């Protein structure tokens, strides 16, 4: 049975890969655009079927398959393979599901794209699905890193899908560089871990952690470096700056990669390697602290953002940090639960936002208004997503967030708990801010042309909305393994309602002036800092332009004009020396005779010196 599970998992993995190969190699097929999309969609749909079967009817036991990858003297240095367990089974379903829906949605969303461009888009999507599935199935750090980088590549390619837009090009490389910064920590960490333990595989590593071989000396550093990978990928402070910019990509991409799946890879990795992180409590503490801090930071930025996608992006950063904070506080299960639920409703929100943008042609919420009337379907599903994210029961966001808060509270990290609670309040605030401003606020322009999304876009929206509700109901009925204290439930709800009320007061009822609120100290300080993104983007730009490029120019100059210059100097001196020396060849016979005479003299003197040498 376990072998059957393993085979199923590999089939799930292979289907999108086959689609990618087909699209990558067969150029005519790729250039047919929609046909390419259908190929990819069929593959992912088949993968979803297998994944669901695996989740519902699989053996349920863990299965691992390993094949040697890097040969070495006395056994392979590294292996690749697949692991099927609770985590990976759930992730398989999530990834294939969201992938499928987003790809279907894309057919409608990108219907105006040229056929070759569309083909390229779906080829990237197929590659992404393969990579993400490979990541969740990884039985070893090394394989995880491989797919980790591949999903990063897909992210880079898809952010830069509109490659002739300079902003998209910039955002793509920015995302790649910044996540790369973390990834290098990751790879350095696993290399160190390998040097100390001789393996990349999770199973033996966990066994070592259990029997106490781990932690060894310097283990904290190793785990910190590995955690850096998650910092980059899951947009933790201070490497979170790429994610808002990544919204330059097509909106479905944001939904899939930058909300539901890829960005959660960091959380997934830390969850997967949790037995190791437990052995490094300092790192775990750091994960929790940074998570809480980032959650708040991102939430404040979401509150002042006007671009609907960027609000969602900051919200993603914030929610990812919730998960990280949960893991850091010792409740990885709660974090993972939030990962799954967030994947559903954030994809929903992004796709909804995509439908809105598709309809009105702008990202700025203050140039929207009364959209609910024009786009009732979209508005409804967006509202479902908003309620879920804000943490209104019985939608799933409430339960997973509440599980996190409970876990954090029980772990005794009061500071983290307080910050997260504040963030939960802000979450509700900024989401309802969008809701009120865009969907119920004053109309700034008439939207005669705005209409609800075509079926290829609407169906995925409704499916996601339905699944969100279903998941919430299931959690409400069967969930709640964590026995939260009632006051905490109340607090959660209260925070969400408070956020809603404040947003209503400020943006709908006009009871409170948002600008006046923002200009009172200390909110004014936060407001202005958040609007400037806490100067982090500027800092990175400065480091890049000033320090890195500046230093490279210095090195380039040194190489060209000093290192090479010295060589040229020597050659030029030689050439010049020849020129000078030929001056003695004056052409006058008597100078030549002087040569003979001096030669004789020099010979005699030299012989004298030689004879008289001590």
């Amino acid at each position: 049975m376990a072998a059957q599970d393993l085979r199923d998992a590999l089939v799930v993995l292979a289907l999108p890969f086959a689609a990618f190969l087909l699209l990558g190699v067969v150029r005519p097929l790729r250039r047919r655009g929609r046909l390419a999309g259908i190929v990819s969609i069929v593959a992912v749909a088949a993968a979803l079927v297998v994944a669901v079967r695996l989740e519902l009817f699989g053996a349920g036991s863990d299965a691992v398959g390993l094949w040697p990858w890097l040969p070495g003297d006395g056994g392979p240095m590294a292996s690749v393979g697949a692991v099927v367990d609770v985590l990976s089974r759930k992730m398989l379903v999530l990834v294939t599901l969201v992938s499928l829906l987003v790809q279907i949605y894309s057919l409608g969303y990108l219907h105006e794209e040229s056929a070759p461009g569309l083909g390229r888009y779906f080829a990237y999507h197929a590659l992404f699905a393969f990579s993400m599935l490979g990541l969740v199935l990884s039985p070893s750090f090394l394989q995880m890193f491989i797919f980790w980088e591949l999903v990063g590549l897909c992210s880079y390619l898809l952010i830069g899908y509109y490659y002739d837009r300079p902003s998209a090009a910039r955002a793509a490389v920015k995302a790649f560089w910044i996540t790369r910064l973390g990834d290098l920590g990751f790879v350095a960490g696993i290399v160190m871990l390998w040097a100390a333990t001789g393996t990349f595989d999770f199973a033996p590593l966990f066994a070592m952690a259990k029997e106490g071989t781990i932690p060894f000396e310097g283990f904290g550093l190793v785990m910190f470096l590995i955690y850096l990978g998650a910092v980059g990928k899951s947009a933790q402070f201070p490497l979170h700056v790429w994610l808002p910019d990544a919204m330059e990509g097509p909106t479905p991409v944001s939904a899939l990669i930058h909300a539901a799946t890829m960005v959660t890879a960091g959380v997934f990795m830390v969850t997967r390697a949790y037995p190791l992180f437990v052995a490094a409590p300092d790192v775990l503490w750091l994960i929790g602290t940074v998570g809480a801090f980032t959650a708040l930071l991102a939430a404040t930025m979401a509150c002042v953002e006007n671009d609907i996608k960027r609000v969602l992006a900051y919200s993603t950063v914030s929610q990812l940090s919730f998960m990280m904070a949960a893991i850091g506080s010792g409740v990885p299960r709660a974090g993972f639960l939030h990962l799954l639920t967030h994947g559903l409703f954030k994809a929903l929100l992004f796709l909804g936002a995509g439908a809105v943008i598709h309809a009105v042609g702008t990202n700025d919420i203050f140039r929207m208004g009364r959209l609910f009337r024009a786009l009732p379907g979209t508005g409804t599903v967006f509202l479902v997503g908003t309620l879920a994210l804000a943490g209104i029961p019985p939608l799933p966001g409430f339960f997973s967030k509440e599980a996190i808060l409970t876990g954090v509270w029980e772990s005794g990290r009061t500071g983290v708990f307080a910050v997260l609670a504040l963030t939960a309040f802000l979450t509700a605030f900024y989401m309802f801010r969008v809701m009120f401003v865009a969907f119920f606020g004053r109309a700034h322009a008439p939207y005669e042309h705005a209409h609800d999304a075509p079926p290829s876009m609407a169906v995925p929206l409704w499916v996601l909305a339905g699944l969100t509700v279903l998941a919430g109901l299931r959690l409400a009925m069967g969930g709640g393994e964590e026995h939260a204290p009632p006051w905490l439930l109340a607090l959660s709800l209260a925070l969400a309602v408070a956020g809603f009320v404040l947003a209503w007061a400020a943006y709908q009822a006009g009871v409170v002036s948002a600008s006046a609120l923002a200009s009172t100290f200390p909110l004014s300080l936060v407001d202005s800092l958040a609007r400037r993104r806490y100067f982090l983007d500027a800092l990175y730009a400065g480091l890049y332009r000033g320090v890195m490029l500046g230093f490279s120019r210095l090195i380039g100059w040194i190489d060209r004009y000093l290192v090479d210059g010295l060589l040229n100097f020597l050659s030029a001196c030689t050439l010049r020396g020849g020129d000078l020396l030929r001056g003695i060849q004056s052409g006058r016979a008597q100078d030549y005779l002087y040569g003979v005479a001096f030669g004789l003299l020099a010979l005699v003197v030299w012989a004298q010196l030689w004879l008289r040498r001590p």
Partner: protein
Amino acid sequence: MSPFTLEAGLGVLLLVVFVAGLAARGSDRRWIGWLVLAGVAGLEALAFALSPVEPAPGAIFVQDGLALFAKRLFLAATLVGVLCGLAPAAGPFARRAAEYHLLLLSSLLGMLVLASARDVILLFVAFELMSIPLYVLAGFAKRDGTAVEAALKFFLVGSVSSAVMAYGLSFVYGAARTTALAGVARAASSGDPLLILGLLAALTGFGFKIAAFPFHMWVPDTYEAASTPFVAWLSVAPKAAGFVAIFRVYFEGTGAGAFWGPIVAALAAVTIVAGNLMALPQENAKRLLAYSGIAHIGYMLVGVAAASASGTAMVLFYLVAYVFGNMGAFLVVEAVARAEGSEHLGAFRGLAQRSPLLALAMLLFLLSLGGIPFVAGFWAKLYVFWAAASAGLYWLVLLGAILTVVALFYYLVVARRMYIDAPVHSGRIRLDPALTIAVLLCVLGVVALGLWPKPLVMAALRVAAPLY
């Protein structure tokens, strides 16, 4: 066999040429050249047929291995030199062919005797017999102002050097009380300052002949102005003779290598540096080769400075490689000059497209001179450095190796003109058959020695061994 066979044969040839010159009529007497060619070829064959003769004790004329080795080399060089002189040449060379060849052969006779001389007087006489015709040959085109100017400079430097040399040799005689080199060698062990002074002064004369810095200054002017076939020969044969004389006087049986080694090493060092550096800015092909030749003399002096049998052998090997490489290069210059009317490096532009054969030959010669594998010069440099390193002269080897890079620079500049630059004129260059054969002979020599240096190395080692 008498030790004088070759010299006697050459004497006969001189007589024949003399008579032929008297009998010749008309303004084109180049057929005498063919006669000379045949004669020299015969002598070369004879030289290879001969074997060394064990010298009688106290003999002043010896036909030992070294002498025979050197004579074969002189004859080979002369063969090539005469061959390329046969090609159509203007005015005096056609009309006065007998005179030209008589002078050439007289000088050759001087060399042959020099190689065998074991007596100071004989050495000096042979030396002058070799030198004086060269002055005349340099100014052979007596209507050409520059040629005569060069000849006069050559003559002045040459005769002053030989005066200094004679003055030195008089001290050698005075100190050693004998003119036999064997006696001089015995006296050398006494360390008489007068003898050392004499030998130092004599070294000036030899330095002039081999063109070591700073006695080299006649070389560029003479090479530039004199006729190229003659220069090709001048650049190798008398040099070889000079080296043989140096081995005879300073090293053979003296046991004084430890004294002369460092002095020669200093000479070698300045010669390598000066030759290579001064070659860098040259734009005239013959001048360039003149300076590069000076540098090569420096490299050979490195082998001399090793003051060992292997060093001497390697110099002999170097000389052979140098004969083919350098003569070949001059011959190509001659061929190009005939087609283009210029010996400027610019005349080589695009040679590869106009005459691939000539360009390839020149490239091979340049590579040989530069010391690149597969051609003779590589082994020559390698062996010389090896010998010097075995003698502990690491600094000299290092200096030589570094300046090899400089040398490659100017050789590659020529290669660049031939292969990289576009030709100025179009059309293929017509080659004279005699000249082509001469070039091919040199190519053969360079390549054969490059691929298969061993027999010659062994031969050189054999003849050099008895000197020490």
